[in-house]
């Protein structure tokens, strides 16, 4: 098991190099340069060129990439933001908890709401308990998080004055972003759990358990659920990873300084150190989450654990 985990961690190295190279290449070849953005239209071309030179932006592409990676991973220096002159690593570490908390709370909401209702839908297929949640899930899945957020803002901030409409600083600030981000994922979890559960309860071993006279609750909870949850955990893990860096619309709407917004703003301003460091941190986090999901498999499914132990 440990060997597997260590092997997977080492496998992250080529992934990080590959992703960083692709991002660096894209940023290098799209039009626009940091000098123009930082100095704006009022500056002369000479001033823009000088600033690009100071930032090392006029160096050959591969040299810039090699310098960046060397500094980042050997000197552990992710550089200084072109726009704010703040250390990039510091900015990312400030924003990561916000994104992490938002993603975790949204996923928790998605799981707490989506999984039980999905199971109920499957167990009570073709009843009102199936149709109603499925219809609601479809409706929510069709709504973008941005729109849900606006409705929540109007309702809970403007009319009821229960929650602040933007910013961070207290748990109240996270309520509406969590709901607007979590609800579409909850509907996704619901539908996925439902279909996974439906597939599982039609398996021979479930039929056998029922034929042997096991109570329905025991069949569902002890036999079906653990198997049905395997793909659900995979999807939840993937979604959680994606949400850490991908909740840009929600972060923007609710004025939350998260990692996704930082990266997107960095792309808009050609703030290369921010974008590179943000993507690298995101890649590492995502890989770790996927690894964690794989390890969790072992605890959910003894067959997987046996495979790790046997070294397959």
């Amino acid at each position, binding site marked *: 098991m440990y060997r597997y985990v260590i092997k997977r961690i080492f496998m992250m190295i080529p992934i990080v190099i590959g992703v960083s190279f692709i991002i660096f290449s894209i940023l290098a070849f799209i039009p*626009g340069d940091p000098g123009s953005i930082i*100095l704006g239209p*009022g500056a002369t*071309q000479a001033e823009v060129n000088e600033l690009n030179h100071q930032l090392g932006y006029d160096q050959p592409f591969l040299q810039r990439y090699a310098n960046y990676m060397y500094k980042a991973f050997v000197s552990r220096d992710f550089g200084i933001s072109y726009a704010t002159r703040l250390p990039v690593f510091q900015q990312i570490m400030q924003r990561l908890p916000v994104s992490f908390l938002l993603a975790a709370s949204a996923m928790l909401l998605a799981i707490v709401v989506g999984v039980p209702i999905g199971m109920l839908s499957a167990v009570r297929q073709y009843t009102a308990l199936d149709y109603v949640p499925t219809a609601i899930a479809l409706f929510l899945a069709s709504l973008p998080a941005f729109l849900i957020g606006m409705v929540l803002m109007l309702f809970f901030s403007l009319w009821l004055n229960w*929650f602040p409409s933007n*910013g961070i600083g207290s748990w109240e600030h996270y309520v509406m972003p969590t709901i607007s981000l979590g609800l579409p994922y909850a509907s996704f979890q619901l539908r996925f759990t439902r279909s996974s559960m439906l597939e599982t309860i039609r398996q021979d071993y479930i039929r056998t358990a029922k034929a042997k006279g096991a109570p329905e609750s025991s069949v569902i909870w002890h036999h079906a659920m653990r198997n049905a949850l395997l793909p659900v955990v995979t999807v939840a893990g993937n979604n959680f990873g994606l949400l850490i860096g991908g909740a840009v619309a929600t972060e923007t709407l609710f*004025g939350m300084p998260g990692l996704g917004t930082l990266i997107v703003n960095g792309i808009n301003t050609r703030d290369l150190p921010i974008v590179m460091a943000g993507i690298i941190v995101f890649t590492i986090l995502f890989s770790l989450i996927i690894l964690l999901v794989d390890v969790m498999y072992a605890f959910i499914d003894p067959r997987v654990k046996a495979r790790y132990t046997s070294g397959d």
Partner: protein
Amino acid sequence: MHKSVRTAFLVIVAVFFLSASMIPAYSDQPKRDSVNLSTLASLTSVDPHPGAENVQDNIVYAQVYEGLVAQNQGTGEYEMRIAESYSISEDGKTYTFKLRPNAKFHNGEPVNASDVVFSLKRVKGMPGRSIYTSDIDDVVVVDDKTVNIVMKGKNAATLNSLSRLMILSEKEVTSQGESFGTKVAKAGTGPYFFTEFEHGVGWKMEAFSDYYRGPASIKYINWKPISEASAGLIAFESGELDWYIAPVANWSQLEKNESINSELVAANHISFISVNYERGALNDDNVRKAIAYAISKEHMVDGSLDGYAVIAKSMIRPGYNTGAPTDTFQYEYDPEKAKEYLAKSGYQNGVDIGTITVVAGGYFEKMAQILQADLAAVGIKGTIRRMENAASLAAYRVQDYDIAVTGNPLTGDYNFYRAMVDSHMVGSFLVKFEGDKFDYKRFDRLFEEGVQELDPVKRMAIYTELDKAVMDTACYLPMFHRTLPLIWVKGLSLTNYHTNPQVFEWKWE
């Protein structure tokens, strides 16, 4: 199973609603000694001079930093700030400023002439501010409270430039070194000083008790960035903000809302169309003039900003901007005349002028669509090329466009137009007049003569000639000046309605 699942579900729902109902109503009501404000983007830096002038940052800096003089945003007049008076030498080159004896930095140190020298020399070495600093030859200490600013020649834009250059504490800036700008500093002289600064999250200010004009009535300012305009409006309406520049699309509802204060204020900004004469058919003077006559500014204002903008007669708006001509040439909407010019150019059956470049989203894109329609009505075809902001800036710098739809904030003096026309700025922005096509040396000369003319009447006459000459090229076509809906809560008394608020002048009734 059925019962247990149902029970669990009901418990979750009950807990959710119970906990929600137990949450006290969110109270971020403004204290009477503070105001809550927002900007559309996070404050980039605490240093007011590191990069390009940024409208959002300037709103914040206006509370903390001051120059020797300030330009009144309502009248365009110059008012003394850190300097209490000034005089100009007989040759018109040397400005002698007497500093206020009671002006202090936020760290409690007095403002001395050496701080002025330090600040102006520091900013002179910075890129992006050359339009303000390039005419300054030297800055010299006369005594602790007197400083001479020596210009390269007579310069009518001196006060405008100095109003844009903030005076910082040499001690604060040097002690923070490279990190100045990244954290709270007490380097300013304005009515407020920073007490907190967290990039992307918010920043706070407190009234400076030793401010030479007296402490501000409102003691604290809490800022936060809200980049989404609709979200900002909701934040205002729910009481989280006390003053806000609302989206213009909401103005018709806001102005009727009697529970708030509102004012539609003209911004010192120009939205315009730039025609690249170096591209294909656009090299033909008649084609460019056909374009100029084909565009309806009314269509532009109505279609892109719901009618809430002021039609521009020139690129630099007169009134607020010193020296800007009031009587200049402009192209009036006349499709028939446009067709005549097109016929003169030999394109009576129409012409494809290539692309209309625009930053995607926002009102510029609507302007591009209206332009496309107006041009099509007289037989000129253009395809809209949408770009993101960074890519468009890079394209404009190297004149990689056919027609561009864009805008610029103005600085308060006609001299700013140099950045868009003068050959010394060639390669920096949109139209490169230098070459055989136009008498660019005449433009340069008139800019030079205009900035050296200290008599306002004569100066405006020079700029009128210049403005007409540039307009005749039909390369820059002014469309409109934006208006911004200001909204603020009842009980907050504003003595100015500027888009760049001066909280020092505000008070709670």
